[in-house]
């Protein structure tokens, strides 16, 4: 079974600075997807970025980028120019290619942004 580990329960960043959230996973599959979701206090899970395991190029979405190290099974999220609206719980998720394409989530990292 796949597992996802987020070792940072909480992180803080100064507004306009850069922060990196860590995620590692364990799997025996070679084909899969990885996701970062953001959950603000409203509880709405919002997709931040996704990475396809067969792609070597790291995904980027505006201020958000990932460092995908497949051999190390590491998938960190970098947020540049942090904004107050980035404050939320961030979840790393593994997407299996098995039937159902279920997501396996890490425990989450609370990100606080200081003004």
């Amino acid at each position: 079974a796949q597992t996802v580990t987020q070792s940072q329960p909480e992180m803080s960043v100064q507004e306009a600075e850069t922060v990196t959230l860590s995620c590692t996973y364990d799997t025996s599959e070679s084909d899969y997807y990885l996701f970062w979701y953001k959950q603000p206090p409203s509880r709405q899970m919002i997709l931040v970025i996704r990475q396809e395991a067969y792609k070597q190029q790291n995904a980027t979405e505006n201020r958000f980028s990932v460092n995908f190290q497949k051999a190390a099974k590491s998938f960190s999220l970098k947020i540049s120019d942090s904004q107050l609206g980035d404050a939320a719980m961030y979840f790393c998720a593994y997407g299996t290619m098995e039937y159902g394409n279920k997501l396996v989530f890490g425990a989450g990292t609370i990100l606080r942004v200081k003004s």
Partner: protein
Amino acid sequence: GAGVSQSPSNKVTEKGKDVELRCDPISGHTALYWYRQSLGQGLEFLIYFQGNSAPDKSGLPSDRFSAERTGGSVSTLTIQRTQQEDSAVYLCASRALGGRQETQYFGPGTRLLVL
């Protein structure tokens, strides 16, 4: 278009009572998931529906939990004889089917409190 909607937003019930949680997926999405998010935890998979196929119930924690999806659209998650450990946020997600892993879009969840 409209996103995934869930009702009620919050539900307080007494131990031993039955509860029903509703999910309206995005129109046209044939895949539907239920996840549970316990306090301070990541999301855990409960059940998956895909079209007319038999649902994947492998994540349901006990036989007190059941779910159905009528007409390939709306889904109801039922918890019978609720226990205090059932207190959690229950999130629904839907997904369009594509050639590979498509993004799951989440609803705002139902916060269930069992007294």
